[in-house]
């Protein structure tokens, strides 16, 4: 007989930036733990089904996993409609995103089942925001999957995104795993090289994996960008990295 296993996955509320109530999808294994935690930062297309599934995947692997809706303030409705509104508005402000991510981290740290370790994972714009959150402090591990615009030219900066995340690298307070596709146009290989150089320069613990034959978003099994071989290898490396840094 197999050992009993189960999980709970549900919408909850966390205190985000400025104390705002933020919806979050929360999945956790049943049982007393102790379990490590992970905050999942959704991609630019929004707080969608893929992120629900990814959150449950982390719970399946033994993590207290929470995915806050970073588009909470931009309306309700289908994720693609909300994402379109956010896109038209130039994205969400970095300060706000980091506040929502930190609020989600505090939610996990307050749970009785926590082992005291919390990581942050994000893809696409969420990879960039995971990097920002890692530099803001409080996390024990960072996973940046193909986050674009960590390296930014001056004309790419905006009121909402005033600082290139790479400029915060000195403050990065946790080991970081980076997964990138070599055919990606954002970030390009040159961007990834620049980020790696900054991490080296500041003596940070990093582990980068760059995949040939893959571009942006190669984990998304429901999109043509999906690359099964690279994705399977990436998930394996990701869970190994988190186990190394988040086990109690």
């Amino acid at each position, binding site marked *: 007989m197999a050992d009993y296993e189960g999980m709970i996955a549900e919408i909850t509320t966390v205190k985000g930036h400025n104390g705002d109530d933020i919806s979050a999808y929360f999945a956790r294994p049943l049982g007393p733990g102790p379990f490590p935690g992970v905050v999942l930062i959704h991609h630019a*297309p929004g707080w969608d089904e893929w992120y629900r599934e990814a959150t449950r995947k982390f719970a399946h692997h033994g993590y207290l996993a929470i995915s806050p809706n970073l588009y909470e303030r931009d309306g309700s409705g289908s994720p*693609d409609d909300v994402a379109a509104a956010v896109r038209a508005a130039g994205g969400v402000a970095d300060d706000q995103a980091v506040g929502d991510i930190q609020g989600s981290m505090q939610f996990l740290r307050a749970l009785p089942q926590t082992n005291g370790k919390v990581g942050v994972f994000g893809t696409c714009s969420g990879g960039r925001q995971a990097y920002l959150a890692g530099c803001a402090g409080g996390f024990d591990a960072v996973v940046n999957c193909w986050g674009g615009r960590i390296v930014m030219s001056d004309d790419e900066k905006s009121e909402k995104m005033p600082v290139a995340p790479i400029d915060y690298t000195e403050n990065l307070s946790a080991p970081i795993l980076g997964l990138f596709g070599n055919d990606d146009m954002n970030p390009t290989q040159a961007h990834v090289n620049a980020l790696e150089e900054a991490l080296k320069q500041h003596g940070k613990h990093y582990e980068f994996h760059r995949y040939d034959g893959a571009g942006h978003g190669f984990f998304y099994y429901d999109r043509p960008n999906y690359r099964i071989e690279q994705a399977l290898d990436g998930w394996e490396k990701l869970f190994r990295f988190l186990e190394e840094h988040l086990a109690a």
Partner: protein
Amino acid sequence: MCTWIVQTAELNGSGKSAEGWIPLTKANVCYDHPAHAFMEHSVNIDFVNENGGTGDRVAVEISAESARQLVSAIVAALEEGSKEHGDLLAGLHA
């Protein structure tokens, strides 16, 4: 989506959304990852009513070649209409 670079056009007209006809005030146009079209990049056009909710939107995701043909078709339609209704291409910049 990953670049947050969006071009816009002010609109005066109507479009049919999932909820029925809505006034349109703006088009948001970008070349980025689509939500539905089975391609890695597409020209994404959101015809929206800025005074409505997030669902007040007519969304289009088409290939770059499709977009070029659409632009040509719109210009051709304006040229044809100009024969009956005066210069409809005035102010159009290439």
